[in-house]
Each structure stands twice: as C-alpha cells, then as structure tokens.
C-alpha cells in the first residue's frame, strides 16, 4: 500500500480532481502518483512536491479539462464568435468607430473616477482619522475679521489640560508663518530654502500615523533641536549617508540633529511636510519662552478626541475655554471650532490654510461630467449597434429559415455586443494605464495604475460591460428576431421600428455634448478673466525677494539704498505677506467706536503704492518726510472707509 507520508499535497490533488474530466481522471491521477512516488524515492519529498505542482497544471490541457457546458453550447459559442469576428472584419470602419468611441468615453470616465477616488481618500489612512479634528478660530465682528485654520499657541495644551476625559492627544504645527526657511548641511555644503518645514509637538506620531523608516517614533521629538526628515530629503541633504545623528543648520543659526527618518508623506494628505522639528526647539528663537499669548494665532492644532465624544457638544465646551482664557477685548468675537480631519481637503476654505485645499464642488462637477461622458459613450454605442443590426435582417431571415430558435438569435446579438463592449473596456484600461502619467502631471497627483486592479473596480468594469452589452444587444435582438421570415427573404423593405427611441437618444446625446462644450468654454473664459482681471495693483516688472527671518529685514534701509543705486531698480518696498496671497488681521479702534474690532491689515514700508502702481483716492502714501508715519500713520481702502461710516474719502483723513 502507499505509504501515507508519500501522498502528494491534498489540495493539489483535489484541485485536479475538480477540473479534470471524469473519463481521464483515474489514468492521469495514476500517472501523477507513479511519477510522484518515483521522485520521492529518488530526489526527496520537496522536489517531488515541486514537480507535482507543475505537472498538475501541465496536465490541465484542453483534452483533460472538464467543460462547464455541453458540446452543443460550445459549438454555438464557436459560431457566435465566428460571426462576431466576421462582422467586425467586414465593416472595419464602423467597428473601429463603435469600439473606439466607447473606449475613449470609458477612458475619460475611468480617469475622472480615479481622480475623484483619490480626492475622497484624503487623510483617511490614519487609524483614528475619524476622531481627529483641526481647531479653527472664527474671529469676527460684524462680519469682518478672519476665519483662521490656526489658533493661538497655548490652545492645544490647555484644551488637553482642561478636558482630559475628552481629548486623547493634540499636536501643534508652527512654521513662523514663513513661506520658506533656510536649511543647510554645512559639511556637504548643501543649502536650500525649504517650504515644507514645521515645528511640531512630540505627539506628532501619536496623533497621526506617518511611518518612520529610522529612529524611535516614541521619543524622536522629545528633545530640543531634534529633527525628523523624509526619505527624499535625507537623499537630498545626505546622499547615501545615514542621516540619523547628522546636523542640519536652521536659518543659519540653529543646529538641528536628525533623530529619525519619515517615509515621504502620501500625496493624499492635506498638508505636505518634508521636515518636522521638535516644538521645544522654538525656545532658541524666543529666548527660552515660546509665545504664550491668546491673540496671535499661528499654530495649526490638531486634536484627537476619545471615541465617545460628540464633537458638537465638545465645541460648546470650548466656548467656556474661550471665555476663561482669551483676552477681554476679543473674547466676544472669538469662537473655537472643530473641523473633522477627513473633511479638510474638500470642505475647508479658511484663512491661513497650510496649503490650498480642493473644493468639494469640483468633485460634483467632475462626477457629473464623468457620468455624462459615460452616458454619451453608451448611447452612442447603443445607437450604432442598433442601427447596424437593422441591416442584418437578411441574415436573420436565413438563420430563421435554417431553424434557429429565437433564443439563439437573441444570444447571438447579445453575445456580439457584449464582446464589443469588453474589447472597448480592455482598450480603455490600456489607455488609462498609458495616459495615467500625463494625467497625473496635469492634476498634480500620483495615482497608481495598480488601483485599476482592485477587485471592486474590476467587478464594476465587468458589470458595466455586461449591462451595456446586454442593453445594446437585446433591443435589436428582439426586433430582428420578430421579423417575418418570408418577407425579409423576399427582400421586402422591413419597417424599421424604434426609430423614435433612437432619435430621442441622439437628441439627448447631442444636447449633453453641447452642454459640456459650452460649459468648457465658459470655464475657460472665467479662468482667463481671473488671470487678466485688474487686481488693483500691477505686478509686471515687480520682483519679490523672500527675506523673512534673514538679515535683510533688520537691515532694510541699507538694502534699499544699495538696491536703488542700480539703474535697473526704480523703487523698493517691503510688505509683510505675499501681496494678493494672504493678509493678517488686527484689532483697531477708530474714533467713535466703543471697543476695538478686528480688521484685515497689511503692513508695508515706504513707496508701497508707487512700487505696486496703486491709486490713491485721497490723501498720500507714507512719506519719509513725516517722522510720525513710521509708527502712527495708516492708509485705508475704500471698503474700510465705508465701514467706518465717514462721509467721503476726504473727510476720513
């Protein structure tokens, strides 16, 4: 008897049994066993199992595989396939238009679908992403003020201290509100301006799930002067050296030591970072005391709440915190809000966002366009297929007189159109894979083509193909198979039915196309308008030099004088933020007002209106001739003047 130890793997044996034809099974299994036993004797069990695996698959050839259907059905499929093939070849141009039309439509649909899917995936990969919120500060009086994505320094820690039962963790991000900061690897003589640099609390890796490649995630940000960098930054500054323990010089003055390397943040995170420095490093810049006031609100603060906390209830509790801590003169104007992390990318449009977010309306618009395109492509396909089918009345007549059953005719047509849709789907998938790199470039994303092979996606594609194929095949199938055989064969003209329906489809298709084209033209016009619209200043020939946290700020006058000596420089000014990008808000109390209110403000230096070619309605720009201008003068715009309720521009001065 066979030694049980020498049995080939059970599952393979069973697998073969399921797929192999009954008549062949005993003989083939016998062969497999005989070869297996011999191999076990000669080369050992492992070797035998290995070969057994391949032999099983090798044996599953056409003659040995069990057919799921009877032979009649198989030969019917053969015939369907043949007829389909002949039809495609016979009318090459028509088939080309039909298949490529559907394929192109599907490609658009798939690309937009991938785009939307990516947009919806933002910030969802953290384990507790649904419990993470960003604190936002609404600071407004009579509709003027700011709705800030960042809050004052102490907010996060105080929140944790006041509500230990609700708040699981908090992390603050701070970057001096500076567009770029300077970093240098002195040893390798590499220095760059970096825009994605943040100081963050040590809880950064507890609140968020960013992966570390090197270093200890629990303690990496515990000490001052500690720095986490991403893999690509490690490469940029240190090449192939081990970055951990190395020093990077921050703003030319503070040495930061790399304590860990982070994996590059995925693209679907609403804020992108390259460097995370420990929050305590800030002591260096603020002479040992990190700002503690409740007015300046530069810290993007994220809190993780306990599972059972209702964010609405918690928001009302935060109102008490505002009343307790915020300074009296702004207390009444401030509301602290919670923004769900997952909603930030699509729904948040606050002031001082870390990076500009997307807009959920885009998703709706793109989604609608995708559906429209798919609809047009499908209607087009159905129309062409049905139009073509009516020319095949004669073929149907011959088939019927040869004894085709109605069901066979129907399956013939359905098979054909399903076949065509699947070819289109295959082409569309190919096109998507081909176009994805360019598409990614266009929309600034990095969607991977591997997303296409998710089971849900494939199932969707197959379902789509089947539905489309059946819908466009079944109509001609029933119409044609109901023709009177004799009159068709006699060559009498068959009244084509369903013309009304097809006309309706064509009209709808045409209307949607027009709608999309007009919509696109309007959108192009709008963006042209945005680009060419007069913003009130002229940016032509104006050069911006970012000098934040560099020496130029304090040495402005000598910088200006040197610059003006150049024949190429007409005037020099300095402003606190990039003009047109954002502005700060500050409390002012004008004559006649009981208490101060927040107003948008923009600090500038002399020659601002001259440099930017702005028009003064009345009065004058800051002047060097008036010493008091340095600290006391104010230029207001027309809207401001209105809100002050003065009569005319001249009166206001």
């Amino acid at each position, binding site marked *: 008897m066979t030694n049980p130890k020498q049995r080939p793997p059970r599952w393979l044996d069973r697998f073969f049994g399921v797929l192999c034809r009954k008549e*062949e099974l005993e*003989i083939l*299994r*016998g*062969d497999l*066993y005989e070869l297996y036993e011999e191999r076990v004797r000669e080369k050992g069990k492992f070797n035998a199992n290995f070969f057994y695996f391949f*032999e099983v698959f*090798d044996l599953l050839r056409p003659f040995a595989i069990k057919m799921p259907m009877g032979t009649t059905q198989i030969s019917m499929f053969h015939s369907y396939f043949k007829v389909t093939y002949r039809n495609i070849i016979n009318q090459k141009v028509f088939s080309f238009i039909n298949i490529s039309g559907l394929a192109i439509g599907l490609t658009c649909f798939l690309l937009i679908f991938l785009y939307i899917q990516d947009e919806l995936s933002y910030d969802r990969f953290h384990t507790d992403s649904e419990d993470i919120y960003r604190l936002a500060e609404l600071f407004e009086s009579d509709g003027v003020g700011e709705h800030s994505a960042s809050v004052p320094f102490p907010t996060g820690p105080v929140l944790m201290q006041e509500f230990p039962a609700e708040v699981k963790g908090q992390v603050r991000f701070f970057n001096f509100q500076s567009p770029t900061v300077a970093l240098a690897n002195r040893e390798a003589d590499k220095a760059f301006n970096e825009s994605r640099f943040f100081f963050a609390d040590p809880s950064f890796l507890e609140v968020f799930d960013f992966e570390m490649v090197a270093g200890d995630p629990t303690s990496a940000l515990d000490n001052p002067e500690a720095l986490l960098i991403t893999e690509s930054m490690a490469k940029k500054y240190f090449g192939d050296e081990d970055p951990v323990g190395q020093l990077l010089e921050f703003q030319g003055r503070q040495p930061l030591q790399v304590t860990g390397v982070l994996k590059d943040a995925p693209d679907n995170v609403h804020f992108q970072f390259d460097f995370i420095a420990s929050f305590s490093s800030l002591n260096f810049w603020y002479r040992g005391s990190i700002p503690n006031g409740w007015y300046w609100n530069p810290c993007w603060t994220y809190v993780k709440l306990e599972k059972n906390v209702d964010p609405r209830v918690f928001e009302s509790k935060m109102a008490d915190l505002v009343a307790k801590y915020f300074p009296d003169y702004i207390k009444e104007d401030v509301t602290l809000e919670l923004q769900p992390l997952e909603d930030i990318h699509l729904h948040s449009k606050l002031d001082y966002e870390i990076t500009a977010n997307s807009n959920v309306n885009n998703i709706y618009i793109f989604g609608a366009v995708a559906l429209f395109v798919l609809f047009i492509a499908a209607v087009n396909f159905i129309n062409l297929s049905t139009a073509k089918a009516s020319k095949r009345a004669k073929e149907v007549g011959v088939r019927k007189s040869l004894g085709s059953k109605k069901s066979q005719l129907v399956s013939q047509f359905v098979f054909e159109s399903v076949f065509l849709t699947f070819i289109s789907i295959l082409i569309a998938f190919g096109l998507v894979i081909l176009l994805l790199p360019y598409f990614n470039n266009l929309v600034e994303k990095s969607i991977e083509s591997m997303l296409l092979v998710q089971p849900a996606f494939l199932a969707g594609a197959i379902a789509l193909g089947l539905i489309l194929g059946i819908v466009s095949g079944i109509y001609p199938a029933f119409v044609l198979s109901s023709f009177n055989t004799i009159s068709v064969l006699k060559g009498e003209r068959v009244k084509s039915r369903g013309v009304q329906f097809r006309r309706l489809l064509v009209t709808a298709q045409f209307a949607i196309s027009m709608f999309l084209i007009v919509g696109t033209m309007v959108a192009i016009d709008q963006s042209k308008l945005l680009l060419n619209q007069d913003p009130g200043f002229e940016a032509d020939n104006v050069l911006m030099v970012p000098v934040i946290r560099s020496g130029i700020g304090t040495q402005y006058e000598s910088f200006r004088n040197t610059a003006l000596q150049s024949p190429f420089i007409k005037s020099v000014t300095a402003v606190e933020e990039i003009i047109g990008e954002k502005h700060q808000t500050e409390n002012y109390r004008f004559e006649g007002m009981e208490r101060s209110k927040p107003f948008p403000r923009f600090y500038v230096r002399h020659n601002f209106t001259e440099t930017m070619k702005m028009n003064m309605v009345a009065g004058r720009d800051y002047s060097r001739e008036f010493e008091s201008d340095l600290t006391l003068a104010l230029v207001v715009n027309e809207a401001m003047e209105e809100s002050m309720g003065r009569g005319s521009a001249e009166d206001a001065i």
Partner: protein
Amino acid sequence: MKSTQLGEFEELVLLIVGALNEEAYSISIKKEFKTRTGRNPSIGALHSAFNRLEKKGFLRSEEGGATNERGGRRKRFYRITAFGRKALDYSYELRTTLYHDLPKVNLAND
C-alpha cells in the same frame, strides 16, 4: 494522404509505442523517450499527443487491471493500429526517397 500527417513529436511517440509493444503506457513511454532521444517530455505533452494520435486513428488504448502501484489506479495501455503503422511506413518511405536524392557531396562547403 493529408490525414496521416505526423508531427515530429507525434511520430516519435508513435514509433516508441510500437517498439514497446505490449508494455506501452504513459510512464514507460516517457522513460523510453528519454533513453532514446535524451529529451524528457512532460506527462501533459505526452497525454495530449496520445489524445491526438488516438483521434487520428493511429493509436488505440485499453485499460489494464489495477495494481498496488499508483495508489491502486489502473494504467492505460496503447497499441499502434494498422492505420498508424501505415502512416509510419509512408513517412519512412518519404524520408528515405528524399534522402537518397541528396547529392553525395556536401555543397554547402564550397
């Protein structure tokens, strides 16, 4: 004689079945094939050749009795048919004739 066309592999299999006479079944054919030609055909390739040859009528098969080998499973023995023999004869004849028509000197070296 279109239907008697034989592929090289098929012809070898057919010849080996004939040579093994009463003992021709898959494994013995596989082994004989290896000793005679040095090639080691896979069991799947052999079975599919048997299948084709049987369809063409060059082989016929019958199942033997069960033994203790092979987990108690039967073997399928193959015999060459008269038609198969004829196909081999024809192929042999064709090759011999063609071979004799080769010029005696190897012209490729000139």
